[in-house]
């Protein structure tokens, strides 16, 4: 187990809801996790599970209205970010906690040179003059492996390829040597060979600079290759929280298992895939009990009635499922599908 003082971020019972004409969408509904120094934490799940909203909530970048963080704590270096002033948050954003996004095509401002967009960070957070900031921006471009950085700095985003733009985003995010980098689907929009380049770059820079990384992704392959610890999210809640090794060796939650079985294998031939039946529930109309119960092959009465807690298991991982509780056997309405 990692030392207590290594803990740099702790999210407790985070709740972010959206208040719209259609009702209240409980996009994030009680999420807990911890990030340690130099560690990579993966948050994985399918669209609408709340992983991106979680990451945006950490930096308080949720558009309000309609979004609002209605509960919980985000503790960074011992202090709750949710009670900080907007001015304090600005000093943290891009400086101590940085973020990169899914679409490098649209995440850079099309009308400014990439050098200017990086230099801006130095001017804002380190009070540098224009010349000095520009010089640092060029250095950053070099750090992220962009060839002839002096010339590239003067170019605008549309003159760069997708992979280059994501490198620029990384350069921008790492300018102030942050303690945490939140990467929201950083390689989803990229081709697989470019994805490999970017993941490699992130790994190298993380080793060099020692920051903690929160990797938001839907791709289990990316999680397996980059993360130390993983939180699997489903319908606004963490359903499983484990080290990457444990998660892939012994997935516990039926959703995690279903997700892994849905992926086509690269080593053996399968006649058909074990898909998860049904669809993700609407965030406006969540099931009363376990949110996965309507799609779960093992679900029985208790699963539809009450939401299970995220509980510790014997091997130190956590799972939110009635099957792993003493109550499971007590219930007489056992369905044919037991725990495999």
């Amino acid at each position, binding site marked *: 187990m990692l030392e207590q003082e290594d803990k740099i971020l702790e999210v407790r019972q985070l709740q972010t809801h959206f208040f719209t004409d259609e009702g209240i969408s409980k996009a994030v509904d009680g999420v807990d996790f911890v990030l340690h120094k130099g560690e990579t934490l993966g948050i994985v799940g399918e669209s609408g599970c709340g992983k991106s909203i979680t990451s945006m909530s950490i930096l308080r970048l949720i558009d309000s209205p309609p979004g609002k963080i209605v509960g919980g704590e985000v503790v960074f270096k011992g202090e709750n970010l949710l009670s900080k002033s907007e001015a304090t948050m600005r000093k943290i*954003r891009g400086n101590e906690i940085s973020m990169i996004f899914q679409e490098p095509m649209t*995440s850079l401002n099309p009308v*400014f040179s990439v050098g200017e967009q990086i230099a*801006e960070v130095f001017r804002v957070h380190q009070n540098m003059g224009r010349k000095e900031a520009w010089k640092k921006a060029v250095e950053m471009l070099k750090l992220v492996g962009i060839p002839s950085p002096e010339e590239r700095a003067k170019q605008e985003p549309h003159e760069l390829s997708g992979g280059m733009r994501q490198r620029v985003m990384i350069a921008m995010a790492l300018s102030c040597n942050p303690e945490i980098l939140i990467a929201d689907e950083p390689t989803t929009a990229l081709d697989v060979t470019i994805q490999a380049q970017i993941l490699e770059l992130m790994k190298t820079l993380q080793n060099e600079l020692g920051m903690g990384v929160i990797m938001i992704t839907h791709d289990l392959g990316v999680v397996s290759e980059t993360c130390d610890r993983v939180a699997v999210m489903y319908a606004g809640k963490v359903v499983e929280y484990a080290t990457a090794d444990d998660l892939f060796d012994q997935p516990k939650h039926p959703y995690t298992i279903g997700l892994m079985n849905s992926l086509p294998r690269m080593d053996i031939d399968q006649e058909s895939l074990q898909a998860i039946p049904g669809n993700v529930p609407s965030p406006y109309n969540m099931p009363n009990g376990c949110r996965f119960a309507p799609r779960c092959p093992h679900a029985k009465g208790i699963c539809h009635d009450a939401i299970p807690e995220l509980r510790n298991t014997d091997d130190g991982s956590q799972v939110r499922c009635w099957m792993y509780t003493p109550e499971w056997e007590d219930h007489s309405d056992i369905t044919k599908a037991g725990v495999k």
Partner: protein
Amino acid sequence: MFVYIIRRFLQTIPVLLGVIFVVFLIMKLVPGDPAVLIAGEGATEETIETIRNDLGLNDPLLVQYFSYLKDIVQGDFGESIRSNRPVFDEIMVRLPITMELALISILFSIVLGMIAGILSATKPNSIADITIMLLALIGVSFPSFWIGLMLIFYFSVQLQIFPVAGWDSWMHIVLPSITLGAMGAAIIARMTRSSMLDVIRQDYIRTARAKGLKNRVIIYKHGLKNAIIPVITVIGLQFGVLLGGAVITETVFAINGLGRLIVDSIYARDLPMIQGTVLTASVIFVIVNLIVDTLYRYFNKRIELD
């Protein structure tokens, strides 16, 4: 960029030739014989015929067009029938006044319209937003001569702050500029608002926030430079509308500009003058469009890719 400007400039030549042709043709089709007008009442048929020959009115249409074109290229717009002075000289006296009025009006439209639009967009559905959009609706829907008359009534007649008419000091400029610029300001405000609201939702604005920038910097630096792109097009179109509006505004405020010159020469059937003024207005419009397109290109370099 340079190639683009040259190319765009070359494209204006056929446009101008077309404009000249249309102006020429319309005047030919208008009832009323200029020779009769020059000769004056009671002139003999022979005198009129002589004048007609002198003016080349008996030549084939195409010959007349080319000789007209040749004169124009040399800066010779003919002589005014009314005053017997060269049309070009008279236009040059009036043009600066109208340009001054138009530029101040468009400036007023841009400044007021953009500030109002940005205020609206940054606080959508707030009281400020609703008030601004209501005013903009009034600006768009009320005719400028009415706005002009109302301004004269309150600020000149009742409050006596500004002069009623004329064009001498800066005090004279205020009311006509507001009159002429009101509609533009309203349209620009609405366009700026919708464009800004669209930009605020973009990913790069989220990136700017994640960088820890101040709201002011996000809106005015990262937002505005993108939001301005569609607004520029509207400003260009608005300038054309403005030239048309100048005719009315100059009449309401008794300003001796190009607009009034057009009106007066139409009343006097002063054909060379009408041709000259309409042509001048067209040339200005074409030039403004060229500038607008170039600016658009400058702000939106991405279109070079398409």
